[in-house]
């Protein structure tokens, strides 16, 4: 992060999004979620509360789960960002997406991208997470539809499939 422009002007900010190098012209304090949705048209990332409580705007920055509503875009300069759009390989859904689909882990869909990215971050660190570890891993992601049970099942199912594969 060497950009030290201080004028109230848009900055040129380069980072990798879902494996592709991108450069945006944005105000440094623009929130990452707004840049993703408006400039890069990656509308899979949803805004819920806008204050880091609900997790629906979760994305990965350099493999680490964050709330994109709390990240000023200047801070992602040179980083690699993964959004929900970056998980599937073409037509083939990510194992988590497939499991959410089959277990009924998605209802209205607002929390789903965040849930899946939080689960993705969890599964990166744990080969076979316990139910308790899954609960903790998803604790910052709120869902108002499912009652969570199907979501927990979907993540456990995805972990099983990944191990079996």
């Amino acid at each position, binding site marked *: 992060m060497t950009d030290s422009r201080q004028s109230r002007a848009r900055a040129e900010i380069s980072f990798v999004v879902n494996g592709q190098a991108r450069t945006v012209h944005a105000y*440094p304090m623009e929130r990452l979620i707004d840049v993703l949705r408006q400039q890069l048209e990656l509308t899979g990332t949803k805004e819920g509360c806008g204050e*880091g409580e609900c997790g629906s705007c979760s994305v990965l920055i350099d493999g680490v789960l964050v709330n994109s509503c709390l990240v000023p875009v200047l*801070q992602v300069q040179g980083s690699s960002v993964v959004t929900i759009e970056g998980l599937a390989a073409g037509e083939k859904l990510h194992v988590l997406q497939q499991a959410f689909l089959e277990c009924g882990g998605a209802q209205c869909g607002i929390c789903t991208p965040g849930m899946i990215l939080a689960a993705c971050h969890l599964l990166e660190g744990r080969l076979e997470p316990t139910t308790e570890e899954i609960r903790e891993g998803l604790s*910052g992601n709120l869902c108002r539809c499912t009652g969570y049970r199907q979501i927990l099942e979907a993540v456990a199912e995805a972990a099983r499939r990944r191990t079996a594969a």
Partner: protein
Amino acid sequence: MRSNPSEYEMAAPGSLHATVSLLAREPGVWIPIAGGTDLMVQYAAGKLPSRKLVSIWNLPELRRVEVAAREIRIGAGCTYTDLRANQVVGGEFPLLHIAARWTGSVANQNRGTIGGNIVNASPAADSLPALLVYDAELILVSVRGERRLPYASFHTGYKKTLLAADELVRAVCLPRRFAGHFSHARKVGARNAQAISKVCIAALGRLADGVVDDVCIALGSVAPVPLRLTETERTVRGKVIDSDLLLLAKKAAATEIRPIDDIRSTARYRSAVAGNLVAEFLNRLNSERIGTERGGAKEVLAKWNCLPLEKAMESILPCCGSQAWVRGMVARRPLSNESALLAASNETWHNLTPADWMEAFRSHPRIGESRPDDSLSTQSRTVQSVEWSAQEQRTVADSEAAVKIALAEANREYERRFNRIFIVCATGKSAPEILDILQQRLRNDTETELQETAEQQRQITEIRLRKWLQG
């Protein structure tokens, strides 16, 4: 009211030196921003005091933990995730480790920093009472140089601190002299997770010759600043913990705190809970003494808390042969005493899947068979667990031939019926008693019997954990 980003400036100088130079050029104008978990919320609400921000996120000088012989220096830019992953914090400063785990969600722990928590100066912050009881000192840095001051003096009023307009918090220093202390943390909030505290406590204590030799107590959310209860500490120091002392301690705590009514709770509730939390800590400290006298439980746990992952898993596996349980327990480190260990075990066990339970069941030999059946062998059975099984089943091994034959027969019937071996917590039970239990349990339906088996395994694990604590 959403802020308009075009009205804000942000600098990202990329080094500590360049950052403090910028702060010195225009003191009080530039707001340092790390992970943004507090400031971006204020920004969104249009409540930032300035429109110029300087990013200190991921500055290498601020994001490291230095371990020296007498103290550890935690860089102010370390995140809660960094703290949770740090072995020295986990092993010697469990209260800080626990507070890091309690702070927000995984995503917020990945971005929120200890320095941000200190400067944000919320009286409800979970990690600040822990810093108070560990006698933390802060290193502040500016172009004028560094200065070091006791953290206890840093907060001067509600959201007011001694930080000068051109200064940054560089590091938090914790003296490494509390590893032998009993520690206790408790958070009282509307929910267990993702809730800001109504009241929280962090406390340390040590007994010598039956009296309180050293004690540090701090509370959150009971005053405009995180509060160290120095009067209460004075009241209990040098005394035997009994019911009279608990009353005196509660009274002293009530005179020290200055709770308020707010959206989360009332002054009256906070006052009652604060007294109860202090009393609970003293009670635990006292029972810890009784526990310690029984064996080196604390040393065993302290050592285990610091073991590398694989070794820690290997060490505790004989207590319960489920790999998921083992992982759950290791993830809950540090555990400071027997009651925390048993509580962690129970919670972990209840949250496992039936498949995980089955794995634990399979690690036992059939009751009445001193040697485990090799056809049932699993990687979860260890030399220690086989030895413990033999101890637990001694009364059966020594019983009359007729009872043994009846047990063997009932075992076979049980295995046909439920497709797994019969598990019972055999410690303290005679062979005829066990036979009786086995025959009764054969009448259970599948689900009832699964739950009963899980409960028996839970009891076995508890007994084994107590043995394990003997070292």
